[in-house]
């Protein structure tokens, strides 16, 4: 069984981004970039399945600028066997990404595609579902558990009221939620080894995919800031404020 894992290079989750003063976007220059945390979880899950013997090969793929090869090296240091970089503009839209991935899937013929459930930059939470739709495959989104049972993928999903388990025929799409696993840190020897693993580079345009954006960003603004609050000295004071000032109890 072959597993494809798309990974995205994003601003590190510990960094609080600032809106550019001209309102055209957020300032990303010079910021630490990392693999999208949900994608790390997807890589980890795929590597574990290979280590258990359920999968034979794990292929990482990233769509974006040249620097995304660092993200692919990280995926390979975590255990992916090889990777593909599809060069395009920075951060293409989920629809375009899903179309590129469909082309890759048709070429590589994986049995499973594991993605992160959302990228923490655009917070779209769409690519996995869109790829599943384009391929006509089943989708196990927001997964907190994945098992291969009798050749089907049994996926436990985090839903609003708790969890739900679905059984998908393979090939299938899975998108990882936070509790699926805790990704490993790549060890130094594995980071060294990853440098020698194969990384193929192709152009998005060579796949015949129309990458035209459907959404234009009109402006980007800071969210309204809350007015500074006060420190209360005691429980009694808190209760008094909530009753008489805020009037919420």
């Amino acid at each position: 069984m072959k597993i494809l894992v798309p990974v995205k290079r994003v601003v590190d989750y510990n960094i609080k981004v600032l809106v550019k003063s001209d309102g055209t976007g957020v300032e990303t220059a010079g910021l630490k970039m990392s693999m999208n945390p949900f994608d790390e979880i997807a890589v980890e899950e795929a590597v574990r399945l290979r280590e258990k013997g359920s999968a034979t090969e794990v292929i990482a793929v990233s769509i974006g600028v040249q620097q995304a090869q660092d993200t692919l090296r990280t995926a390979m240091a975590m255990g992916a066997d090889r990777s593909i970089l599809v060069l395009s503009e920075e951060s293409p839209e989920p629809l375009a990404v899903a179309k590129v991935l469909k082309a890759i899937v048709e070429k590589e013929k994986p049995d499973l595609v594991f993605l992160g459930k959302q990228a923490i930059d655009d917070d779209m939470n769409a690519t996995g579902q869109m790829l599943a739709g384009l391929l006509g495959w089943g989708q196990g989104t927001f997964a907190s558990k994945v098992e291969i049972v009798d050749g089907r993928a049994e996926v436990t999903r985090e839903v609003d009221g708790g969890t739900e388990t679905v059984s998908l025929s393979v090939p299938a799409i899975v998108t990882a939620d936070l509790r699926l696993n805790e990704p490993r840190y790549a060890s130094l020897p594995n980071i060294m080894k990853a440098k020698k693993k194969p990384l193929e580079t192709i152009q998005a345009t060579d796949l015949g995919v129309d990458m035209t954006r459907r959404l234009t960003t009109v402006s980007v603004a800071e969210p309204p800031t809350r007015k500074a609050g006060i420190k209360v000295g005691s429980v009694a004071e808190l209760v008094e404020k909530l009753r008489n000032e805020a009037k919420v109890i």
Partner: protein
Amino acid sequence: MTVLVLVETEAGQIRQASRSAITAATKLGDVHALVVGNAADAEAAATLAAKVPGVAKVLKAGADVLAHELAEPVADLIVSLAGDYSHIVAASTAVGKNVLPRAAALLDVQPIPDVMAIVDADTFVRPIYAGNALATVKSSDAKKVLTIRATNFDPAPAEGGSASVDAVNVTVQDTVSRFVSEHTPTSDRPELESARVIVSGGRGLGSAENFQSVLTPLADKLGAAIGASRVAVDSGYAENDCQVGQTGKIVAPELYIAVGISGAIQHLAGMKDSKVIVAINKDAEAPMLQVADYALVGDLFEVVPELAKAL
């Protein structure tokens, strides 16, 4: 313009988030509400949806294949109905987020998730970077596919309307996915997303037992729902459906009491639009204190029981 809204029910009610989606949709055009489920559930849901003011017509899709609102058949159903609708809308719930992007891909549309405000028929405001920036985006797609952030739109009332109901002839199939089981812990507390007051706990509680014994009396006094940080959920103090934040629930109650929660940006993303925020934390430097209206610096194990007693 006419808008198709996927409406969800829960425990014999139209979900509040879906009623917020209806409110948003009425700003775009006439609203047709799509209800799905097995025959009996769809029938019941259609009756409820017809009563929501603002709904012009209800489309009732009842079939076993739709019983669990799985994305594969529901997306196909939406595509088959998409016809002349200018917008296809759902709430940003687990179901909405699962189904709509799939339907959008099949319609060759880039979806617009988590809409917080509608500027015009093509232009919408949505959060990016865990809500640290708000992007106004304009779509060039002929049809728009949107999910609505429920906390930004008042829910339409449950009663007062009288829409007509049309039965949809369901021909979609599902050959790739199958429902197996669900685990839905029940509680007699209010639902997180519609609660007026939320008491939320984090790592500071230290154990599942403390989480219960410290927070429950306070939540009982206030008639509050109980929320949690990711760490509290991951450590097994609370169920996963209690998580508030970027990847959990988005809430905006009248009063949010954060107990032993530091206020990481991913947590703030889920609750910073609450009307009044109280932080109870022993660390005066915790980021939660910067967004709190009232901060009480102290040991939660002393302060919270005292607060419960004082109410």
